[in-house]
Structure formats: structure tokens, C-alpha cells
């Protein structure tokens, strides 16, 4: 649906329209429309196989769309290469913590510093005061200041998740996408992650996939329910939770 008074409303950061992807005839995402505003924290929920992770894969270029468009700050992502999408300002965290276990926390963060991304740049990359400052600043943000020089595989599961979020923050993305950021976390870690997300969502948009409803409640501005590759419902957490269609999908069968 197009928005009639587009010139009055702030343009969405991300506008997904008619997005479809089919794997051997099975439509994992089917004619999906999704708009995310600036400074918005959007949570996508839905039963297993609803196509949530596929949507993230499509946005970041890991999977190519069969049809439809993904506009990010007026740039069409469906035709761009993965690293160009990242450089345009889209950061994506994977479901399992995906960090460099052999490197230290500092080096993990430094790796995502948006300089020295080409061969010669990386070869002659210098660890300047600016880089160190940025790494320390992000480490403080993700509560890993004390572990900067620890090898990353020695971190706890929750800390690894934060580290990966920190790696994304290094790039200062306009759109941050998180796939199940609190999976496997303890209760107190979940609470800390929720605070972290509320802090870092200032000045950027965040798209989160999550199952944990308590956590969703504590962060979401708006919730989108996906079912069989389509949007089933969208709105505030309360509205979505009392939606009979949503209840049917979650409790049905």
C-alpha cells in the first residue's frame, strides 16, 4: 500500500514491497510489505518457518529475492552485493553468535571498524588513537570494557552475543538487524540486553526477531507477526497479542 501523504510523513528507512522468494516453488516469503521508520524498534515474531530469518537474509543480500523491492534510504538493496549493503548502513547479527573466536574482544571490534576494508587498506591499516577510542567506547556500551584483551572464545554465551552486537555498532549502521539476540541468555542477561537495545536504538532503526515475549514487550515499539511468509498482524504488542488470528496461529493446529 502506498502512503498517500508521503511528503508529510517521514519517509521510512526501510520499505519492503511485494517481496517474494521461492525455493523450488515453496514461497518462504510471499508478497511481503514492511515499513520501518527512523528510530523505530520493530520486532518480528511468528511461529517456526514463518520466514522471519529469510526476511533478514533477503534484506542483507544473503538470499536473493524472486520478486519485489527492498528500498533502504532510497537505495534498492535487491541488486546490491552483500558488502555494499553493509557499507550502505545495514548491519546484521546472526542467530548463533558469530564472532572471531581466535581473536581478542578488541580485535573483534576493530575488525568491524569501517576503514581498511579493501586489500591495500587492510594491509596498511594503522591502529590510530581514533580507532582505539571508538573500540573502547563501544566496549563500554556492550559491557565488555574489562574483557577487551580476552580471547573471544573465553566469553560467556551472553557476552558473545553482545560482542557481535558491538561489532555491528562499530559500523554505526542506520539499520540494525538482530536475529534472536537473547536466545540462550539468563534472565539477568536478557534484562541487560533489553537495556542495551533501548540505549543503542537512539538515532537508528532496529529490526529484531525474537521468541521471548517478555523481552519483546520490553523493547518493541511495534510488532509484526509473520505467518507463512506473509504479514498476519501488525501493531502494538497488546493489540497483536489479543488479535484472534495471532492466537489461532500460535495455539492452533
Amino acid at each position, binding site marked *: 500500500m502506498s502512503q498517500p501523504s508521503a511528503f508529510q510523513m517521514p519517509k521510512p528507512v526501510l520499505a519492503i514491497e511485494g517481496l517474494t522468494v521461492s525455493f523450488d516453488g515453496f514461497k518462504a516469503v510471499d508478497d511481503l510489505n514492511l515499513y520501518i521508520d527512523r528510530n523505530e524498534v520493530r520486532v518480528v515474531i511468528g511461529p517456526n518457518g514463518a520466514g522471519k530469518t529469510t526476511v533478514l537474509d533477503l534484506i*542483507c543480500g*544473503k538470499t536473493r529475492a524472486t520478486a519485489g523491492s527492498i528500498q533502504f534510504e532510497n537505495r534498492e538493496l535487491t541488486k546490491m*552485493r*552483500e*558488502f555494499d549493503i*553493509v*557499507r550502505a548502513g545495514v*548491519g*546484521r547479527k*546472526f542467530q548463533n553468535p*558469530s*564472532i*572471531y*573466536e*581466535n*581473536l*581478542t574482544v*578488541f*580485535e573483534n571490534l*576493530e*575488525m*568491524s571498524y*569501517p576503514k*581498511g*576494508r*579493501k*586489500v591495500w587498506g*587492510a*594491509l*596498511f*591499516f594503522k*591502529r590510530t588513537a581514533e580507532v582505539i577510542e571508538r573500540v573502547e567506547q563501544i566496549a563500554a556500551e556492550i559491557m565488555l570494557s574489562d574483557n*577487551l*584483551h580476552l580471547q573471544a572464545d573465553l566469553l560467556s554465551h551472553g557476552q558473545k552475543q553482545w560482542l*557481535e552486537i558491538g*561489532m555491528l555498532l562499530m*559500523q554505526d549502521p542506520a539499520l540494525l538487524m538482530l536475529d534472536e539476540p537473547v536466545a540462550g541468555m539468563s534472565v539477568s542477561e536478557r534484562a541487560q540486553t533489553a537495556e542495551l537495545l533501548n540505549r543503542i536504538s537512539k538515532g537508528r532503526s532496529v529490526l529484531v526477531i525474537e521468541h521471548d515475549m517478555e523481552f519483546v514487550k520490553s523493547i518493541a515499539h511495534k510488532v509484526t507477526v509473520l505467518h507463512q511468509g506473509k504479514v498476519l498482524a501488525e501493531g502494538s504488542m497488546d493489540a497483536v497479542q489479543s488479535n484472534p488470528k495471532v492466537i489461532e496461529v500460535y495455539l492452533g493446529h
Partner: protein
Amino acid sequence: MNPTLDKFLGGKQGAIGLAVLATLILVVFPLALDAFRLNMVGKYLTYAFVAVGLVLCWGYGGILSLGQGMFFGLGGYCMAMFLKLEASDPESTKIQSTPGIPDFMDWNQITELPMLWQPFHSFGFTLLAVIGVPVILALVIGMAMFKRRVGDVYFSIVTQAIALILTVLIIGQQGLTGGVNGITDLKTLLGWDIRDDSSKMILYFINAFLLFGCILLGRFILASKLGRLLMAMRDKEERVRFSGYDVASFKIFVFCVAAAFSAIGGAMFALQVGFMSPSFVGIVPSIEMVIFAAVGGRMSLLGAVYGALLVNFGKTYFSETFPELWLYLMGGLFIAVVMYFPNGIAGLWESHGRKLLGKLSRKPAPLAAPAPPPEAPATSSQPRELETTP
């Protein structure tokens, strides 16, 4: 210390390891070995170039090429072509039906020097070609494979196939390449006789210095952000890609560097041994070179040199003593490395040798890992002892 210099040397540990290897190669071998054996060590050290390249692209980059022989061979052929042209002046080839062209061309009824050979009259062009031709081939293979995300075992198989194709091509084009015999009977380099003992000694030292140059360059690459990226790509390729890096371009780069190192080794081989043949291009030599790197330790630049020396000493010893058994021993050695000491000699040194040295010197053993400095995260482990010198 100057940080750039430090990058090349790899910190204090790295500098000591380098000094030990340099003493071994530049002092001990030349003093202890006769001219024949020293020339043989020189030959082994040309393989070490390939092994050092493999540490970069396989050990750190995770790209297992089973076709490094093609780069070694191409570098060697480029050098051999120049030397052959010099050895084929009209005066010394006057008994041929066409004097002034390489002897094998004459045997193949070729009456004119082929176009491909013409530029190899120039030494400058030859030096350029020694590096340039293999690097361009690596670039083409790398672009074709890595841009399409062909990786892992598929890449290994493709490199093997290309090495085989190149061998078949060289053998088939007898008039152009000397066929299965290769290019033999090389005599002088710019008028300087490369066959007598004193020139072989000089070539040995040139070879050694070039090898150390490659090791230092390798260290510089590994100490840079690019080195950490290689490891990151090996372990978490997706994460690197979705952190804004064009993964393929880094793989192509390190593959080209490994190719260039191999090519220098090949050219030095042609100079020191006096011939080049397809038997250094194909699958078997390529796999042998992987074994050198594996035995030495695929994460250690210096280890690769020890690996090349050790396996070749072993090969010479065993093939002189039990010629039939050698291949089985080599296979057994590779299996043992993979199963029991995956980090090779360098890994053994890290886990046992260092401790032993600590006990021997009767100092309190240093703490296992006193928080590595942030600059040198996973620096390659270097064996510091002279492993074996038969």
C-alpha cells in the same frame, strides 16, 4: 622499537626464531656441508618458498591449493627459457640444422624461435615474467573461483585439475617446452657460469636471502589487519562478508602472494639445479609441497622452512636406502601429521619444546600465556631449535 620493523620481525619471539633459522641456513649449512650437499639444501629451500606461501594461503587463509606446483613450475620455466636462450647462441649450437635455437626445438624440426620465446632474450622481462606469469594465472583462477564462492575441497580439486592440465600441455608442446624432459643444460646467467661450485655457493645465498625476504613479507602481511582478516574469513566467512568486506578480493590477494612466492622458488630452482621439467608442475609435487607445510606447521612461516628441509632430507635419505618404501613413508608421515600433530613441528615445539628448554635452562618456567600483547594475537609459533641436521 620501530613498530613497522617490529611487524616484519614479529616481536622478540619472532626475531629469535628468525635468527636461529638464519644461523642454520647462512652459517651452519655452508660450513658443515660440501658443495654437493649444500646445493641440495639450496634445492630444498626452493621448495620452502612454496611452503611459506602455503602457510599464508592455507594455514591462515584456509585456501588449500593442491596445485602450487604450477606456479613453481611457471616461475622456473620463465627463468629456464632465458637461461636456455643464453645457452643456445649460434656458436655453441652450430652443429644443429638451425643454429641459435634451443636444442630440443631443433630435434622437433622447428626452424625458427617461436614468438613465445622472443621476449625471453631480455633479462628484465624474464624477471618480470617469473613473478608476473604465475600471478596472472593465480589472479584468473582466483577470480573465477572465489568470486563464485567456490571454496574448500572444490577449490582444491580444481587447482589439482589445472595443475594436471598444465602438465599435459607442457608435455604435449614438445617443440615449445622441451616436453617431458623439460628445459635442460642451462649454463650461464648473463655470461656468468652457474655450474661451478663458487657460483652455486653464491646462488645458495641469494636463494636464502630471497627466502628470508618472503618470510618477512609474510610476517608483515600476517601482522597487519589483513592477516587477522584471513583468519577471520577462514573461521567465519559470513561474518566477515556481512561486516562489509569483499571476501573474494582478500582470497585472491593471498592466493596471488602464495603464487608469487612459489614462482620465486621455481626460478631459483632452475638457476641452482640447472633444469626445469614438468615433473615439478603436476599433482604429485604440488601435494608434496602441501606436506612440507603440514609437517613444518601450517600456521608457522618458519616451520614451513623446517618442514621443507626435514621432509626432503628424509626423502633423500630413505630413497637412497629404501627406494621402494619412500612413498609409503611419506604417506604415513602425512597421516601422522594430520591425526596426531596437526600443527606440525611448530606445534610440537610450542607444546613440548619450549617447556623442555625452560627446564634445561633451570629458570622457573615462564607462565604458559602471560596475556599476549594486543598487537600480536596469534603470531605463528616458531620452532627455535635446530630440529635435525643429518
